[in-house]
C-alpha cells in the first residue's frame, strides 16, 4: 500500500480495510462487555453501583478475554484457514 501518495484503488482499499477493522473492534468490544457482564454481575440487581468484587472481576475478565483473543488471533494467522 503506497503510504504517501496512494492511488485511487489503494485508497479505497485502505478505507474499506479501516472500516472493516473498526467494525471488528466495535463487535469485539460489545461481545466483551456482554460476556463479562454475564460472568461477573449478580442479576438480582440489589443496588445500582458496582461493588468491589464486581469491579475486580470485570478487570480480570477483560484481561483474560483479551488474552484469549490474542491467542486465537495468533493461532488463526499461523495455522491458517480452518478446514473446509
Amino acid at each position, binding site marked *: 500500500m503506497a503510504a504517501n501518495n496512494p492511488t485511487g484503488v489503494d*485508497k479505497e482499499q485502505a*478505507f474499506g480495510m*479501516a*472500516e472493516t477493522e*473498526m*467494525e471488528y*473492534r*466495535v463487535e469485539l*468490544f*460489545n461481545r*466483551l*462487555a*456482554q460476556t*463479562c*457482564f454475564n460472568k*461477573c*454481575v449478580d*442479576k438480582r*440487581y*440489589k*443496588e*445500582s*453501583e*458496582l461493588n468491589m468484587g*464486581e*469491579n475486580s472481576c*470485570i*478487570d480480570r475478565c*477483560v*484481561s483474560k478475554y*483479551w488474552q484469549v483473543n*490474542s491467542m486465537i488471533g495468533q493461532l488463526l494467522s499461523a495455522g491458517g484457514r480452518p478446514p473446509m
Partner: protein
Amino acid sequence: MYVIYQCYEHLATLTIPPAPYCTRATGLNLWVSGKSGPEKGAGMDKNMLAGLDGLPEQDKARMAAMIDHLQLRDSLRMYNSLVERCFNDCVDNFTRKTLQKQEETCVMRCAEKFLKHSMRVGMRFAELNSQAATQE
C-alpha cells in the same frame, strides 16, 4: 445518575448525534482515542481519533463520517440490547399491564449497572489496545 436517563431519552427520539456523555458510555470513543481515563470536556475532537492527524482534509472528513456512523449504530444497538437484557432480568410477572414498583427499580438499577460496567470495560479495553499498539 439522571444524566444516563437523559441519554436514553435522547436516543429514543433519535436526535442525532448522541450527546458526548452517551457515546462515552459505549466505549467506542474510548478505544478509538486510545485514552484510558474518564473523558474531560464536552466532546471528542475527531482529528484526535484513530490517528487521523496526518491525512488530507477529505480523508479526515470521510474517516470522521465513518466513525460517526459507527458510533450512532453502536449506540442504538446498545440501547436495544440493554432494554432486552433488563427486561429479561427484571420482568417476569404478567398479571398486570403496567410495571410494578419493584420491577421499575430493578430496571433502573440494571441499566445503571450495565452502563457503569460498560464504561469500566471501555477504560480497560482502551488500555489494552494502547498497550498492544505500542508493542507492535
